[in-house]
């Protein structure tokens, strides 16, 4: 291992406690002043599931166990969206700290993604509960969902690094990204069946790495089968490309952050 890598590992172990402190802070901040507290991460998907089921389950009646179909998609999308969105805001939001003490800046981005992973784990309880109620089989393939989940986290981290860096220089990136996320949501078969898309628009699925991850997750939870190798390889490559670009951008521009915040 090269000298530089060893040094980076040392700083990481030094800042491990900071990372856990930041994750704790993010989660506490999210539920601060709310009576229901952590219950919100259960209620949120539950309520939207009820509304969507009432509205769409008759329209898409060929989709059996619609609530499980919807939730497995929605939770996947939500993990990416909320993780990358909070990561994007984390660098500007924590300026108060890194303006006064040197801390590796990727820690803030990473902690945002990890704290959203914790809320994601809570919301899985709802998915499991609904699967029990509707008697959807719990299969061994659910364990294999951990790989696509890991890829979503890497992808959210990479996107968060890129957007977070841009956001320091241009604050309107936040607004642009929220519009982008809305488009991303409708472009993915979260509440509609994937095959209703006309053939000439198929490209919005084939060129969307998150679409493959959604398929993988649905394979594990809804269809009870293993995803194919291509379905997991495409988003893995995309996630590492995003991560690479993110690391390069942050390295290049982090010394100038303090001049813009």
């Amino acid at each position, binding site marked *: 291992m090269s000298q530089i890598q060893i040094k980076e590992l040392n700083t990481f172990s030094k800042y491990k406690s900071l990372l856990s402190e930041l994750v704790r802070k993010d989660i506490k*901040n999210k539920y601060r002043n709310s009576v229901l507290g952590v219950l919100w991460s259960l209620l949120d998907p539950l309520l939207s599931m009820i509304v969507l089921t009432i509205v769409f389950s008759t329209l898409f009646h060929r989709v059996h166990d619609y609530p499980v179909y919807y939730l497995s998609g929605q939770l996947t999308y939500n993990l990416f969206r909320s993780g990358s969105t909070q990561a994007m805001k984390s660098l500007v939001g924590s300026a*108060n*700290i890194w*303006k*006064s*003490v040197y801390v590796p800046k990727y820690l803030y981005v990473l902690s945002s993604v990890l704290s959203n992973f914790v809320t994601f784990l809570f919301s899985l309880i709802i998915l499991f509960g609904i699967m029990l109620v509707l008697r959807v089989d719990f299969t061994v393939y659910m364990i294999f969902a951990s790989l696509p989940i890991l890829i979503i986290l890497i992808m959210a981290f990479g996107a968060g690094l890129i957007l977070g860096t841009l956001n320091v220089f*241009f*604050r309107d990136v936040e607004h*642009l990204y929220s519009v982008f996320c809305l488009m991303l949501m409708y472009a993915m078969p979260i509440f509609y069946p994937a095959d209703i898309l006309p053939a000439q628009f198929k490209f919005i699925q084939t060129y969307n790495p998150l679409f493959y991850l959604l398929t993988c997750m649905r394979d594990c939870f809804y269809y009870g089968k293993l995803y194919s190798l291509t379905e997991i390889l495409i988003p893995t490559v995309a996630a590492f490309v995003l991560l690479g670009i993110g690391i390069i951008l942050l390295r290049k521009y982090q010394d100038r952050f303090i*001049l813009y915040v």
Partner: protein
Amino acid sequence: MSDETMIEVNNVSMEFNLSEQKTDNLKEFVIKFIKRELHFQSFWALNNISLKINKGDKIGFLGLNGAGKSTLLKIIAGVLKPTKGDVKLYGTIAPLLSLGAGFDPNFSGRDNIYLNGAVLGHSRAEMQEKFDDIVEFAELGEFIDVPVKNYSSGMKSRLAFSIATSVNPDIIILDEVLSVGDMSFQRKSKDRMNNMMSDATLLYVSHSVGSVRNLCDKAIWLHKGSVIAAGEVNEICNQYETYVKNL
């Protein structure tokens, strides 16, 4: 006091671009880019500063507003990267660069002790051990569970100073942080600096020359980004006071 070097500042210069910092959104940037208004307006905050600071030195920085004191300390703390030159530190550092920095205003003093400790590289368990000492020294009592945003400036400064000194850093930076504390706390902090922190290196900025004389044994006078004089604290303070009187 020993001859062991703690901080080395080598030929540090810092350039700011005054016009660049006004654009913070994409729309303005594009408009300025098209109109070709993105010109460069240079300002040198520090010119070729070199310092060698030994272990246990207590150094006061004097100078008018805009002399570059805070910029220099930010560079030493590692939060600002100098345009030219470099800084080497041979120990752990606890920088208090401004009041309330490093705190999350929405969190209680208790949570902020753990957060701040982690920022300085200390685990929750270590901070738990020091917790009672920190609260007692900061004289916060029952206010420790109140969000920091409701603290007075004196309370914030006492808590920050208390945390920073309790983690035993080799280098401590105080930039106008103590000046909001009352007389009794200033005396207490001085005692703490002299006893507990006698081995630590102190970099101290204050506009009160009296407190510089009180806390420091050496002083450095900065003017428009250059070192004018450096040496024994009373000597430099006298020179500085004569200069200020004749302004």
